């Protein structure tokens, strides 16, 4: 593959032909802001926040869609570039609701971060505001199209990666927004509630319903673990606050990247469900009653050893589980064969 050498911020950089200016910059530690670019989906070039200045070019090209050419001389933070970015951010803020105080995205919002970084306030143009109703007629995702910056990432991830095309741009100009085909709720749209759109949305337009008001990004610790449902073994980042799991995000790397299915992403409510067993139960006079661990364990051990003595280990069966860990299955294997002296050990592998 042929290579191309360019000068970026006075630094000589050599990359394979066909590389975009954005990729060349990122691979060399130069940060260029983006809103609509996403490496996993097709190039779009819509927001223009990523513009850079190329010597000899009249207009400022968007770094995310412009490929390097030999001997390009690029400035990523020239005065013209900064002015252009500020204007873009001012326009975006002009019709963005003033809701950062209560917005779920605060602290993890690209628009907020860039406004801060480029020193843009929300007073330059006082534009007309959108006034769309909140769309929340499903258990998982709240869509607030007043906050949408039309980056189109949700549309592309839904069609290109998830393959659902549940949402698309509708209307034009000022009224443009992202909607389901018939403008009905997500539940009627073929959406599978994978939440991949949540994962890519740079602002607070798409947020998780169950997590509302439960915690700020900086208050939560994130624990990477493995999904408890199907055999794919997606990596999850459980969001924990005050010793409770209040959300789950995709692990970000590994086999599932930023994607999960509805069970992995939204199916964690069982962890703290009131029905969880909290104490051992022992059947007394026909009814299961709460008892202490020592009583439950002593009774169990006594009954198992009684059966073993009277009828032999082969009269005992053990079901291990496809749900518990390797370590736990190993211990049950050892416990059944060595302690109970039975090979009657199985689990529901056959379903």
């Amino acid at each position, binding site marked *: 593959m042929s290579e191309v050498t360019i000068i970026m911020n006075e630094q000589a950089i050599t990359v394979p032909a066909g590389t975009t200016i954005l990729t060349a910059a990122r691979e060399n530690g130069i940060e260029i802001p983006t809103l609509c670019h996403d490496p996993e989906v097709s190039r779009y070039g819509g927001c223009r926040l990523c513009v850079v200045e190329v010597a000899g070019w009249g207009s400022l090209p968007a770094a995310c869609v412009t490929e390097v050419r030999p001997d390009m001389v690029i400035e990523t933070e020239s005065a013209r570039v900064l002015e252009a970015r500020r204007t873009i951010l001012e326009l975006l803020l002009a019709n963005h609701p003033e809701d950062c105080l209560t917005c779920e995205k605060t602290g993890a919002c690209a628009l907020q971060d860039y406004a801060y970084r480029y020193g843009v306030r929300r007073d330059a143009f006082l534009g007309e505001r959108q006034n769309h109703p909140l769309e929340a007629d499903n258990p998982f995702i709240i869509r607030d199209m007043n906050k949408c910056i039309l980056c189109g990432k949700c549309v592309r991830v839904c069609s290109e990666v998830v393959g659902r095309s549940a949402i698309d741009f509708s209307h034009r100009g000022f009224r443009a927004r992202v909607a389901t085909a018939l403008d009905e709720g997500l539940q009627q749209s073929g959406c599978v509630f994978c939440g991949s759109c949540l994962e890519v949305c740079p602002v607070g337009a798409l947020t998780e319903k169950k997590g509302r008001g439960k915690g700020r990004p900086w208050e939560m610790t994130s624990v990477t673990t493995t999904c408890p449902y*199907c055999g794919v073994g*997606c990596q999850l980042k459980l969001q924990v606050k005050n010793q409770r799991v209040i959300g789950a995000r995709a692990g970000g790397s590994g086999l599932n990247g930023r994607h999960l299915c509805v069970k992995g992403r939204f199916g964690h409510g069982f962890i703290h469900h009131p029905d969880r067993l909290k104490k051992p139960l022992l059947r007394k006079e026909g009814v299961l009653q709460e008892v202490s661990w020592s009583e439950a364990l002593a009774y169990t051990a006594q009954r198992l050893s009684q059966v073993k003595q009277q009828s032999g280990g082969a009269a005992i069966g053990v079901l291990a589980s496809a749900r518990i860990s390797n370590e736990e299955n190993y211990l049950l294997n050892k416990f059944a064969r060595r302690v109970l002296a039975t090979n009657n050990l199985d689990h529901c592998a*056959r379903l």
Partner: protein
Amino acid sequence: MTNSIDEIAGADFILAIGSNTTEAHPIISLRIRRAVQRGATLVVVDPRKTELAELAGQHLQLVSGTDIILLNSLVHVILEEGLWNQEFVQSRCEGLAELKQAVEPYTPKYAEQLTGIPAAVLQQTARGYAQAAKATVVYTMGLTQHVSGTDNVLALTNLVLLCGQIGRESTGINPLRGQNNVQGACDMGALPNVFTGYQPVADDACRQKFAEAWGGPLPAQPGLTLGQMMDAAQQETLKAMYIVGENPVLADADANHVAAALAKLDFLVVQDIFLTETAKLADVVLPAVSFAEKDGTFTNTERRVQRVRQAVPPVGDSLADWQITSALSNLLGYPMPYGHPEEIFRELVKVTPSYAGMTYARLEQAGIQWPCPQADHPGTPFLHQGEFVRGKGKFHAVHYLSPAELPDEQYPLLLNTGRRLFHYHTGSMTLRTGLQEICPEERLDISLQDAAALGLNQGERVRLTSRRGTVISSVHISDRVPQGMVFASFHFPEVAINQLTNDARCPKSNISEFKICAVKIEKI
């Protein structure tokens, strides 16, 4: 799986059999979709018109239970047209003569009559698979939950071996495992006949090795499978059971039989996170913690051992399963003095050759795919490169076996069962999350034709009866099922569909025929 999930995206030809991948393994379906976007051919073999079937270039909507006929006919075509991989077969396989003889009668014309798939489509599929640069197969319970389940898989293996579509990247034969750690439970010897790493209990050397590691004698006779245990409980030869994290009362075929068998036990102890239908029958219920409250490892369907990390403290007085088992063992006079799951992991890798090179530190980043025999081994993304574990790959002569119970006059419809996207297994977890709100009840899928014949409207309630039991469900009129078939999941306790399913089992694998039984429907 012989291969990694990621490799699916690199295949040119994907044959998916009996796998409702978009609902049961959604993230794997993203890889299949990516392969299709890249131009790969996807052929789906399924009696139902699943979403994956809609994505496929070719949907072979076969008559339920005729998989062997279909697969043998593909082999027939490939042999007849000389499309097989001679070099691979000569150097790595044996039994070709028997295979040739066995598939002789399975002409595409004959197969067309029984499977309902046109001969030309069978020929086209055979050619496409044989001639692809990288062809891969994925299959799930749709292939295995039949009385001929093992033979179905052998018939598929014949096809794979004959074309040499294995042992390279993005080729292979890939069963997608249903539960988070079903692979690990098998690897860890939670089976009646093997220790960890599939070391047979009946093998003297293996038993000796474990007897030394565990400091005492071990029984030599392979034990009972789950289904056999239920039979033995029914006959009162099995007297006590210790059931950990399983809900056989809802999950097993012919569930009424299971509940009756458990009721006959002298002693039943169940360890789980909820009071499941099985736990309700127990003498003792021990509260375990969920995955979020403990450390450990799970092994996924591509053999990747990955960490599970504790995120929150145990709920109430619950304890991790490893702690409970250790405590019981201590009381029974065999000390298990573990302080942390990592200590157990260090012990188990010593007796498990395929895990021998793993440590928690090495698993930290992205896990490791077994076999990983030494500390410096990177793990194995795909199996059977160069040679098969048992030496030569063997062809098996297998023949069609009729399902144990087909529709008849009295029970005119075929009941097929499986999973749905929004729920999991017997629902003990997902029915306690927001997923319940979006998919609140079971709805029996039924074809437009059958619904019309029975005078049913969308959502109407019906009584569904087999020779073993009855449930009440509402109906969902859908073109996903063909005429003559109804489909239900086993996720909802209110519609305990496994009270109806047939416990006829594949004699080799002991898997029940969850996919086919005869039922009738009455409007109520």
